[in-house]
């Protein structure tokens, strides 16, 4: 289950989408979250689906890979769709059995909502699939830069994010290691009543906390020893570069927005 969730996973490839600046991708994805809600008819949804399909093709991420990541969310999509199908009472009555009534409007509404959810998840997954976590945090730091004027610790925030991303695999490894050590001492994490099972996790969580705190302290020390003083006057090894294609992509998105506004009913 865990290895199927692709939100936050990077798919290494060389595509126009991979080469885009992380800032333009972040802006685009964020913008997209809003314009999805503009669609309210077949034409506008069709436009969005076409746009998303083109983006996916451009990204060179295999469909199989995307589908695998979508699987856990599909249940939610189907559930929302069914809710709308059964609860919207608009248009012609198509089917009636006891208290179950399905209207034409319900079906349309259900399909729209399902599409909306799928499009949202697909686009945000594409962002993380085509951008390395480090690029995302760099981009975020840049974009949030203006907030520094109001004394918001933007650099520290970005650093926190990249550190936590960096240590997720380490933490998983550590969990497995300690789990095995406790299992070798007869601990049982997989069976028994819920209360017992919750208790069984204490021997796992305590060592994990202890080592995480220790690691955090060591990391802070190591950073200070190498003269880290926060973001003030810090230069970058990998500078972000804004290309023509980034401007072009954003213009394209504006065009899409304009057409959506014109075509929506």
């Amino acid at each position, binding site marked *: 289950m865990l290895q199927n969730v692709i939100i936050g996973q990077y798919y290494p490839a060389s595509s126009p989408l991979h080469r885009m600046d992380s800032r333009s991708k972040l802006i685009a994805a964020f913008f997209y979250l809003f314009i999805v809600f503009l669609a309210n008819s077949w034409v506008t949804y069709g436009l969005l689906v076409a746009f998303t399909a083109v983006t996916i093709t451009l990204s060179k991420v295999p469909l199989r890979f995307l589908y695998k990541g979508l699987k856990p969310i599909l249940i939610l999509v189907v559930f929302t769709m069914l809710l709308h199908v059964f609860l919207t009472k608009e248009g012609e009555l198509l089917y009636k059995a006891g208290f179950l009534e399905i209207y034409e409007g319900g079906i349309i509404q259900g399909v729209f909502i399902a599409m909306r959810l799928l499009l949202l998840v697909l686009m945000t997954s594409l962002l993380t699939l085509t951008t390395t976590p480090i690029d995302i945090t760099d981009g975020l730091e840049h974009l949030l830069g203006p907030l520094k004027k109001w004394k918001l610790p933007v650099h520290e925030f970005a650093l926190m994010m990249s550190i936590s991303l960096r240590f997720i695999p380490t933490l998983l490894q550590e969990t497995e290691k300690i789990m095995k050590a406790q299992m070798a*001492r*007869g601990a049982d994490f997989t069976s028994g009543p819920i209360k017992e099972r919750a208790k069984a996790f204490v021997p796992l969580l305590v060592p994990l906390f202890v080592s995480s705190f220790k690691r955090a302290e060591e990391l802070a020390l190591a950073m200070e020893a190498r003269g880290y003083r926060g973001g003030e006057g810090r230069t970058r090894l990998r500078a972000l570069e804004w290309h023509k294609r980034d401007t072009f992509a954003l213009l394209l998105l504006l065009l899409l927005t304009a057409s959506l506004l014109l075509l929506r009913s």
Partner: protein
Amino acid sequence: MQGTPFERRALHDITLDIGDGTFLALIGHTGSGKSTLIQHFNGLLKPSDGSIKMGSTELKAGGKKQDLKPLRKKAGIVFQYPEHQLFEETVEKDIMFGPRNFGVSEEEAKKTASKVIEMVGLPQSVLTKSPFDLSGGQMRRVAIAGVLAMNPEVLILDEPTAGLDPSGRVEIMELFYNLHEKNKLTTILVTHSMEDASKYADEIAVMHKGELYLHGKPSDIFNQRELLNQAGLDVPETVQFLNKWNEVSGQNLSLSSFTIEELAKLVSLSLKKRGN
């Protein structure tokens, strides 16, 4: 994970028979599959092909789910850096964790705790302390005590002396060796150190790239320096020295226990003989 791009063959074609009461040293380069192999011995990992037999328990590939507790009690594993597994409020409770899991009564477990803490060379007063107030070396000993408290018949040690100072190393290894002799345990020691292997082991198994590369008595293994070098290993320093010695002096001395003391005796004897 079979059938995914992440599939990787960790172990392959290993037939290893470890007799009762053997002290086996498992040697190999980093990533040669030593740790993976020992995790099969108590069912932490299950084979995707083949089988493992430990006493009367057999783990088969694709076999039914079985209760692994008896197996885990029988084979105690001291993992690398075992001090990371400590979690209880007091040392005593932590040591009792293993026995309690295997259904030993609280009283009995307490008795065991006070017994094993002596065995690992710590005073009784440590029992009431928090494990996190101890020094690294002491924590290591407490963690080892926690495994010994399970009273295993087979003791599996995954680089138990990694990160210890030299005197701590010798003490811990002596402790395991004495235990092995006294309680007639079967001991499997995973190590990088040819010196430790030569000093304590009855048998040596060399792993290389997930396969069993060499297996035999230490004297046999150390005769195959070429092969060892190919696996990224070398014979112990004592053997290296003696080989050179034999080469230069034209003698044909051989060691039986590979300790520095024995080597020194042997060499000084031969020097004396020459002097006469």
